[in-house]
C-alpha cells in the first residue's frame, strides 16, 4: 500500500494556450480509492496517464511514498492501467493474457499457470484460461483485464472508466468485484469516471475536476452536504439555489431567515442551497412555506415535484409511497430543516 501524491501537476495541451491539467495537488492515502470525477475533457485521463508514466508532465511532480517517480519509465513504475477498452492481446489466450506480466518477469511456467488459475477463479472466471479474448463477453473481458492487472501486484492500480462500456446490470457486478478485490489486495487505486453515481459508490474520496483544475477533494457525502460552490452542487444534482443576503449569523432569503451553518462562505451576498430530497412536505399544514405543485415526475421509487413558492421554483424529491395522490395544482406546505441548508458564494457569472 503506497501513498500517491500529485504536487502541482500540470500538462499543457500541445499548440494550445490552456492547460489540460493545471497545478493539481492531491494526496491519496495508502490503500484508498480516489476517484477523479468530472465532465468529459477535464483532464482526468491525462492525469491518469501521467501517474502511469505514459505521459510526461509539463510541470509538477508525482510521488510514490514520498519519492518522485518522474525519472522511472512506465514499465518499471508498477502503476498498472485498466482502460475502458479492455485491450486484451488478441494473439494470446486468456491465460496467456493474464500471465503476461508474470511471464515477462521471468516467472517459471508452472508458477505462472498456478497463479493465473488462482486469479481467474478470484474474478469468477475459472476454466477460461484456454479461451481466446474474442470468445468472451464484454463483462468477462473486463474481468480478465482486471485479473491481468492485479496478478503483478502493482503499487498503484489505475482504472480509466472501466465500467462505461458495460451494460447497467453488469456495471453493478463489476463495481462490487472491483471494490472487493481492492479491499483484499489493499492497492492504492485511482479511478476515472464522468458518472457521479459511480464515483459516490466506489470512492473513499472524490477529486472533482473542472477544466483541468481541482475543485473539491473530499469524501462523497461532502459533495452532497457541503459542496464548495454552485457548479459543484449542480454536478451532483443540486438544483435549489436561493439567493440570500447575509446579516450577522443569519441569512435572509425570500423563504425566510435561517441561521448560517458553520464553515460556510463569509460574503454578504450568498446562495443558499438545499437538496431536493431534504425538503419535507408537511402533511397537516404546519410547514412554514406555502407552495403549489407545477409538475410532478414519477421516477419509480421517487417522485420529483416542481413547486412554485412566490417567485421561486423549488424541486422537491420524495419517496413515491409517501406522496401518492399529490398531483399538479395541489397546494403544499413545505418545511425546510435549517440543519440541511448550505450556504455558498454566488456563481461567478
Amino acid at each position, binding site marked *: 500500500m503506497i501513498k500517491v501524491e500529485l504536487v502541482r501537476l500540470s500538462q499543457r495541451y500541445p499548440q494550445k494556450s490552456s492547460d489540460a491539467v493545471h497545478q493539481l495537488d492531491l494526496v491519496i492515502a495508502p490503500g484508498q480509492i480516489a476517484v477523479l470525477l468530472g465532465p468529459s475533457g477535464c483532464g482526468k485521463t491525462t492525469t491518469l496517464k501521467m501517474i502511469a508514466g505514459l505521459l510526461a508532465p509539463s510541470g509538477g511532480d508525482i510521488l510514490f511514498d514520498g519519492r518522485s517517480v518522474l525519472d522511472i519509465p512506465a514499465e518499471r513504475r508498477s*502503476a498498472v492501467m485498466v482502460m475502458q*477498452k*479492455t485491450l486484451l*492481446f488478441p494473439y494470446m489466450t486468456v491465460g496467456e493474457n493474464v500471465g503476461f*506480466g508474470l511471464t515477462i518477469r521471468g516467472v517459471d511456467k508452472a508458477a505462472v499457470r498456478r497463479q493465473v488459475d488462482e486469479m481467474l477463479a478470484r474474478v469468477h472466471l475459472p476454466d477460461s484460461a484456454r479461451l481466446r479474448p*474474442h470468445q468472451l463477453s464484454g463483462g468477462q473481458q473486463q474481468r480478465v483485464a482486471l485479473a491481468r492487472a492485479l496478478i503483478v501486484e502493482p503499487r498503484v492500480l489505475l482504472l480509466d472508466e472501466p465500467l462505461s462500456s458495460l451494460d447497467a446490470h453488469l456495471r453493478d457486478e463489476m463495481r462490487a468485484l472491483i471494490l472487493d478485490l481492492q479491499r483484499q489486495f489493499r492497492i492504492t487505486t485511482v479511478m476515472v469516471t464522468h458518472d457521479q453515481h459511480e464515483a459516490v459508490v466506489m470512492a473513499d474520496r472524490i477529486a472533482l475536476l473542472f477544466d483541468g483544475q481541482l475543485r473539491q477533494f473530499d469524501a462523497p457525502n461532502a459533495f452532497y452536504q457541503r459542496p464548495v460552490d454552485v457548479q459543484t452542487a449542480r454536478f451532483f444534482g443540486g438544483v435549489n439555489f436561493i439567493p440570500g443576503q447575509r446579516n450577522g449569523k443569519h441569512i435572509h432569503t425570500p423563504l425566510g431567515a435561517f441561521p448560517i451553518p458553520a464553515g460556510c462562505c463569509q460574503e454578504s451576498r450568498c446562495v443558499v442551497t438545499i437538496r431536493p430530497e431534504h425538503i419535507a412536505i408537511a402533511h397537516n399544514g404546519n410547514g412554514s412555506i406555502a407552495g403549489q405543485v407545477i409538475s410532478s415526475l414519477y421516477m419509480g421509487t421517487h417522485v420529483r415535484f416542481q413547486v412554485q413558492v412566490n417567485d421561486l421554483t423549488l424541486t422537491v424529491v420524495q419517496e413515491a409511497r409517501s406522496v401518492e395522490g399529490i398531483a399538479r395544482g395541489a397546494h403544499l406546505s413545505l418545511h425546510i430543516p435549517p440543519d440541511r441548508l448550505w450556504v455558498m458564494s454566488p456563481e461567478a457569472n
Partner: protein
Amino acid sequence: MQGSIVALAATLLSIVVSVPAGRALGLHQFRGKKLVQFLILAPTIVPSIAVVMGIHILFIRLRLTGTLLGVVLVHLIPTTPYVTMVMSSVFANYDPAYEEQARTLGASRWRIFWSITLPAIFPGLMVGGMFAFIISWEQYLMTLLIGSGQVVTLPVLLFSFANSGNTAVMAALSLVFVAPSILILFLTARHLSGESAILRGVR
C-alpha cells in the same frame, strides 16, 4: 543461385527499413510528411534507367560495382516504396494503445515489439516481403548495370540466352523464373485475404 540470395537480402533489408518508416507514416503526423511520402514513392514514378545511370558512377567510386552488396543496395530502390506503402497502411489500422497497456504491465520495448507489434503486423510483413522479393527477383536493368556482368541473376541470364536465340534453354529458364513468384503467391494467399485481429478489433 545469386538471384535468390540477392532477392532474399533485398527483401530483408527493405523490411528493416520499411517497418519504422511505415510506422512513422501510418501512426504520426509531422511537418513535411507529404514531402516524405512523395520522396518514398518517387522510385515508382521515375524509370530505373534514369536512376541507375547516376548511381552507377557513384558506386564505381565506392567500389560497389560488380559486388553482391552493390546489387542488393540498388534493389532497395524499387522495393522499398512498396513495402513502406504496405506497412504504412498496416500501421494506420493499428492501435498503439495495446503497447501502452503492455508498458504499464512492465514490458520492455523489445518485448512489446516481439509479443504485441510483430504478431499484429505479420500479415502485412508477409505481403510487403512478397512484393519486395518478386520485384528484386525480376530486376534486369539495375542488376546488369551495377552487377557489371559479375552478378548474374535469372533475368540477366534469360536475356543473354534470348539474344543468342537458344529458345529451348530460354523456355526452361522462363519456367524457373516464374516459379518463385507463383510459389510465394500461393504461400501468402491466406495472409492476403485474412485480416489480423488487432486491425479489426477484438469485438
